[in-house]
Every structure is written in structure tokens, then in C-alpha cells.
């Protein structure tokens, strides 16, 4: 097998069995999606072929990856992954109501069931798993302490394949953040999330990897009856990043909010792909997507809302808007409705454009400098999405990144 990113060197994992062996077989059969693959039409991986990577091993677990300067929420518990390897002592002193351990074979089976099926990242990362973590919020527990999964790394020649199973048991509540701030060749995390009946998960993901990292994520979420997900994804870092999340509303009255922001500059490529499946009736889903693109960045949003025949009384909403700040930037969108039930309210909207000149004029005519006015309008544009986050800790964790991105904005001022 050639040692390239397209076919990572998997010789160390060639002796797998069980779930991982099956995943490896699927991966070897299909590999990375080709140019013909409709799901990857806006995000091509071919140009990354020249990278030579191999999955990280235990030697790389002990590093000094810096924690970001941004303040963590007070009392937050941090679980660290370095170069894709779980830092063992970070599982000590878990908050009450949360259990954390390494995955076993049953967990891997559950992960494959939850994560996006027939997906290259799911198959590759389960096969080449660098560390597997099973996190459980026990039934009925209300855990308000934010648990932060911190992913760091400092080896540009490795691919990292952390795999996490997160289960929020019946009636439990948990607050989880995934924070990627690594400098590796490829970061390919798999998140498998199961939110049981009447449970609630507040979830945020920050993708802030280095400018040379390729980030390809596969997140699968299953929601039980009357389960609530308040989720948010922020993509700022990486050279090429695809945050793909599949949500299965598997029982009635589930409520899913999964919004996202992508911020791109230079030659960055951000891809937010969501797949919202309403399998049962009386569920609602709402997605607010905002993107700002500068330099020669490219932003992609693909969002599919699938409503099954039995999913009557579905309410599926989705709104995606992209702002182009530069002549070389490109925004692509493919919102998609696939509806088989008749008693539903489903809508999506998508816009692409630049800042509204009349709004700019309104502000500048009141003595605000053009730079500040632009920053204000961009901030307001992004606030539509950020305001969706209900949990104060997660909101506080996320906002500084958005602000920092804007401050680093070429031509903007410290507004």
C-alpha cells in the first residue's frame, strides 16, 4: 500500500479482528471518494495525495501540546488527546455522573452503528484508531460541568484517528465540547453520540487546527424520544476541513439544533456537511449556518433534511448564508430536502453575497468609520448563529474564537 494520505500506511493495524477488521475491509475496498462521488463534489481530496502519513502511535502520546490561551470555562474538566492518543491521566477525577474508559469491542460496534455509515472517515478511523474513549453520562444525572475533549498534536507526518463514543443515558444531561487545536497531517476524529430518551446534550465543536492540517470529521448522532441536542460547530483552522455530521431523529418529539459557522481566509477550504434524518414524527430540527470568506478561501455547505414516510408533523428548518469579502473567495451551497411524508413543515434558505451597502452607508453616515462598520455588520451576521447556543459556558468558550478571527481580519480594526 503506498504511503500517501489517500492510502495511509496501515501495516501496523493489519492484524485487526472483529469490528475494526470489518471497517478496514470496507476502507480498503472503497478508499477515499473519487471525483464522481456526489457527496464530495465540492470537496476534492485528490490534491492531498502527495502527503505521506501514517497513523500516530503510542510514542507520540507524550507531548507538550500547548493549551490554547483562551480561558476554559470555570471548573471544566479537560480530557486530552495528543497526536490522537488519549492522555491517560486525563480520565482521573471525572465529574460525578460521568464515567470514562477506553472502548471495548462492544463499544466499537456501537460506534460503527452510530457514526455515518459507508463513510471513508468512519471506516478509516475505526480501523486505524489511535485511541478510543467511551464517555457515559449515567441515567438521570445532570452534569453541568463542561467536559472538554482537547485535541492537540505536533507531528506533521502523522494522521490521528481518535474515536469517541458518547452516551447520554435516559433523562441525563451533559455539556460536552470538542476542541481541536492540533498541528498534524490529518486529523480524522469519529464522534458517535447517543442521546437517549428525555436526555439532553449541549455540544460544541471548535475546529482550530493549524494551517497545514487537514481535518476530516465524521460525527454521528442518534436521538431518542424527546431528546434534546443543542449543538454547534465552528470551523476556523486547517487547510482543508470537512465537518460532517449525521443526525438520526429515531424517536418522536426529539428536538435537534445543529448550527455552524465557518470562517475562511487565505487558501482555506471549509466544508460543513449535515445530514438530518427525521425517521419518526413530531420531531423538530433547526440549523442556522453562517460563513465568512476572505482571501482565496472556499466555503461549502451541504445540508440534507430527510423526512421518512412515517415522520408526520415534522418541522425541519435550515438557513444558510455566506458572506464573500474578497474577489477570490468562493461559496458553494447545496441545501437539500428529501421528503416522503405529507404533513410536514420543511423549509430551507440559502444566500450568498457581500455586505449590504445600504447598511454600511447607514452606519458610516452616523460617523462610524467604514472599517468599524464592516466589523459590526460581520459580527451581527455571525451572531445570528452564535445566539443559537443556549449553554452559557459553551457560548463563552466559542465566542472569543469568532472575535479573534475578526480581529485578525485584514483591513479590519479592533472594534
Amino acid at each position, binding site marked *: 500500500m503506498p504511503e500517501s494520505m489517500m492510502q495511509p500506511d496501515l501495516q501496523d493495524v493489519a492484524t485487526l479482528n472483529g469490528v475494526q477488521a470489518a471497517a478496514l475491509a470496507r476502507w480498503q475496498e472503497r478508499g477515499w471518494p473519487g471525483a464522481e462521488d456526489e457527496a464530495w463534489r465540492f470537496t476534492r481530496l485528490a490534491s492531498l495525495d502527495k502527503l505521506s502519513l501514517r497513523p500516530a502511535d503510542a510514542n507520540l502520546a507524550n507531548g507538550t501540546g500547548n493549551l490554547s490561551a483562551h480561558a476554559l470555562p470555570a471548573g471544566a474538566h479537560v480530557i486530552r488527546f495528543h497526536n490522537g492518543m488519549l492522555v491517560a491521566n486525563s480520565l482521573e477525577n471525572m465529574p460525578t455522573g460521568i464515567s470514562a474508559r477506553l472502548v471495548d469491542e462492544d463499544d466499537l460496534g456501537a460506534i460503527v452503528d452510530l457514526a455515518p455509515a459507508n463513510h471513508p472517515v468512519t471506516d478509516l478511523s475505526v480501523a486505524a484508531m489511535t485511541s478510543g474513549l467511551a464517555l457515559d453520562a449515567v441515567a438521570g444525572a445532570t452534569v453541568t460541568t463542561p467536559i472538554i475533549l482537547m485535541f492537540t498534536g505536533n507531528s506533521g507526518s502523522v494522521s490521528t484517528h481518535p474515536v469517541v463514543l458518547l452516551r447520554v443515558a435516559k433523562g441525563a444531561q451533559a455539556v460536552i465540547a470538542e476542541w481541536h487545536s492540533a498541528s498534524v497531517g490529518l486529523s480524522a476524529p469519529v464522534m458517535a453520540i447517543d442521546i437517549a430518551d428525555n436526555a439532553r446534550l449541549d455540544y460544541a465543536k471548535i475546529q482550530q487546527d493549524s494551517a497545514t492540517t487537514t481535518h476530516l470529521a465524521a460525527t454521528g448522532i442518534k436521538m431518542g424520544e424527546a431528546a434534546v441536542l443543542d449543538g454547534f460547530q465552528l470551523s476556523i483552522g486547517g487547510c482543508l476541513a470537512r465537518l460532517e455530521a449525521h443526525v438520526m431523529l429515531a424517536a418522536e418529539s426529539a428536538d435537534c439544533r445543529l448550527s455552524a459557522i465557518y470562517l475562511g481566509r487565505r487558501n482555506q477550504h471549509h466544508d460543513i456537511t449535515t445530514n438530518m434524518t427525521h425517521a419518526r414524527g413530531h420531531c423538530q430540527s433547526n440549523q442556522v449556518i453562517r460563513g465568512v470568506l476572505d482571501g482565496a478561501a472556499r466555503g461549502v455547505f451541504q445540508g440534507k433534511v430527510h423526512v421518512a414516510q412515517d415522520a408526520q408533523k415534522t418541522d425541519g428548518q435550515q438557513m444558510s448564508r455566506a458572506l464573500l469579502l474578497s*474577489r477570490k473567495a*468562493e*461559496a458553494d451551497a447545496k441545501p437539500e430536502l428529501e421528503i416522503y411524508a*405529507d404533513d410536514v413543515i420543511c423549509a430551507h434558505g440559502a444566500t*450568498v*453575497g457581500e455586505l449590504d451597502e445600504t447598511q454600511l452607508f447607514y452606519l458610516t453616515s452616523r460617523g462610524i468609520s467604514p472599517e468599524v462598520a464592516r466589523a459590526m455588520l460581520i459580527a451581527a451576521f455571525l451572531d445570528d448563529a452564535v445566539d443559537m447556543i443556549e449553554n452559557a459556558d459553551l457560548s463563552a468558550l466559542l465566542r472569543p474564537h469568532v472575535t479573534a478571527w475578526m480581529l485578525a481580519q485584514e483591513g479590519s480594526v479592533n472594534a
Partner: protein
Amino acid sequence: MAATLETIETLEQATGKYKYGFVTDIESDKAPKGLNEDIIRFISAKKDEPEWMLEWRLKAFAVWQKMDSPDWAKLDIPPIDYQDAYYYAAPKTSDGPASLDEVDPELLRTYEKLGIPISEQKLLAGVVAVDAVFDSVSVATTFRDELAKAGVIFCPISEAIREYPELIKTYMGSVVPVADNYFSALNAAVFTDGSFVYIPKGVRCPMELSTYFRINEQNTGQFERTLIIAEDSSYVSYLEGCTAPQRDENQLHAAVVELVAMQDAEIKYSTVQNWYPGDENGKGGIYNFVTKRGACRGDRSKISWTQVETGSAITWKYPSCILQGKDSVGEFYSVALTNNFQQADTGTKMIHIGEGSRSTIISKGISAGRSQNCYRGLVRIQPGAENARNFTQCDSLLVGDRCGAHTVPYIVSRNPSAKIEHEATTSRISEDQLFYCLQRGISEEDAVSLIVNGFCKEVMKELPMEFAVEAQKLIGISLEGSVG
């Protein structure tokens, strides 16, 4: 027409199953079954074509053989045996008819059943000219004289190939290249007829041009090719309507329509597509795989597509605009209605290249029975399309809980000054509206037809008068059996 009379008529038609389901018995001059170079030579010889046209066809055939049938649409297409069909069938006549009197009376009666009494057209004082296409050969063309006076050329494309080779060489395949897709390549190889329209500089076409396409002979695919050229500052409105007799075997139809609008020219292209959709069990019906595309070549040119799609078992159709000219305008108004086991994957492509180009897309999809209805559209803004503007609205209506409505828009923007807006909704007929109608003594079926027609109004108002009336009735008929 009084509303009550119209309602009665609609009801009568609705009870009569597929209104246009009959087969005219006229002996056909057929090519043997199958598709190969010899068949293409046969078609070319039948059409008395020059050598360059035959070469063009053979080249297209070579290209087609290397291509695969597209599978990206949300359609379940049974495998098609291209060798098991006839590619040429012409109504048997020794020479072309010199006047209407020479046209086979059987044919004329067919048209009457379809509602286009050619013999009465002349009396109707120049409202519409009909270049009627019966199976694959144009048999009757009216109002040629009046059009000729204005300098407008409106003739079968086979005639244009002989009479205006320079125009054909310049424009045919310039908007839809031969190798554009599987079905356009097939069409280029075996097209049998279609219409050619040329509007000279500064001419406003004195009447609306109309063609009725009709599939008649069993097992003959229709491969129409239409080319419309509107020179600087000209205007033309073109109507295309389709009906087909009822039959059990699936029929393939792969047409290509090319429009070219030069500076300040405007082309309005309206379609009512009412081919046999198959029976209520999904048996039979036409496969409608059409490539329609218009190029707004000149500044301030405009191309407007309006379509009402109620027929065909499977529809694969994306009338598109390439907006090359500065401030050029593209429009797409569509109603796609599917019932029983029909499948439709239809939409548009708006390619913005010119500065200030604008496009509007209004799509109304109605699914009933066990049908699947998909809107698929692309809005692409190229880097040079400064201040381009697009507005897209896609609404889907579900009638019954066994059908599907899908919306797949693609948006690609590479210019920050461009503004693109897309919105889509999916819902069903509101109980309130239905109750309101029932309570006033309107039957449920009529109420649904009324509400659906209201839902489609934005598109219907874009249709020329004659079509609007027919289209409204069609919607009522097509929804038959979907409620209750």
C-alpha cells in the same frame, strides 16, 4: 369561458381517464429496429441530408457509444435496450403535401382530437402558427407566408439543413455540444426532426410560434431537435405542447432544444408536456430525457423558459440559461406535477458569466399518489459576473402520504458582488383551505384542483393565453384519483 362551464368540462375530462389515449392507424415507413451506423445512414438518406450532416451524426454516435447513462438524478430508470427500438418512422406519403388538402384526413382528425384543428387555423386569423410534428416528420405547416413576409424562418429542421446550411453549421451544437451528455449525444446521432426558427435583426415575430409534438407509432423514440436563433433586438414566443396516445410499452424521448439570443433579443419558450404518464399501476408511459439550453449571447438579451410538466412516466429535464451577455436575463418558471408512479427530476441551470446578469427561478412541484418529484437546479456565478443577481423559490406540495418531494439546489458563487437567494418550502394542502372549499359545496377533487392551481398561479400567469387554459385543465386531470 364561464367558470361553471369550465368546471363541468374539467370534470368530464377527469372521468375519461387519459384524454389523449388513442392510436391513429396510419401505415408507417419505418427503419429496422436497432441502432447502428447503418440506421444513422438510413435516417440521413431519408432526410436527404448533405454529407457533412451525416458525418456530424456519425461522430455523435461514436461519442455516445463511449458514454454512460447518467445516474445522479433521483430517478429509478429501468434499463433501456437501445437496440430494441425503432429510430425512424414517418407517416407514409409519396411527396410532401402541397396544401392541407393533401394531408391524410386521418392525421387531421388526430389533430382535432388533440385540440389543434389545423383546417381551422387559417380561419382563426393568424393567432398561432403550427409546425405540427406527427411522429418524426413535419407534415403540415401553416402561416409560412405571413412569417416569410416578416423575414422569419420557421420550418422543419431537416429543411433548414438543406436550405440554410450556414446557419445550421454555425449554431447547431453550439449551445448543447454533442458530447454534453448521454442523451444529447444520442439525439445528435439519430434526431429525425424538429423545428428551426430564425428571427432576423429588429424583427418582432408577428405571431406566437407553436409546435405540437406527438408520439404515435409504437416503439419509436422521438428525437426532436429544435434550434431557435433570435438576432439583435428581435423577439419570439415559442410554444411547445405534447400529448401522446396510450400504450403499454415505455417509449424513449430524448429531445434537444437550443436557443440563441443576440443583443437585446428576447426568446420566450413555453412548454406544456402531457405525454402518457403510465397507468395508475405505473405500467407504461413515456421516458422524457430532454436537454434544453439557451445562450444569452448578446448584451441585454433575455431567455425565459416556462414549463408545465404533467405527463411522462419519467422526466429528466433541466432547461438552462447561459448568461454570457452583459445585463442578460434568464428566467425559469416551472410547474411539475406527478401522480401515481410518475417520477420527475427537473429544474434548471443558470450560469452567470456576464456582468449584471440576472436570473429568476420559480419552481412549483406537486406530488401525489406514489410519485417522486425532485427539483434539481444549479446557480453558478463566474468570477466576471459582477453584480449578478439570482432569486430562486422552490415550493413543493404533497398530496397524500405515499409520495415524495425533493429539493436539491446547487449554489456556486465566485464573485462577492453577486447576490444569490434561494428559498424552498414543502407543505401539504392546508386543511383550512380544503374545508373552506368543501363547506361551500365544492367537491374534494375540485377543491384540490382549485388549490393546486392557486399554488401554481405564479407560473401559470407566465404562460401564453392558449396554454394557460389547457394547463389548468391538465392539472385537474392529472390529479385525478389522488384524493379520497
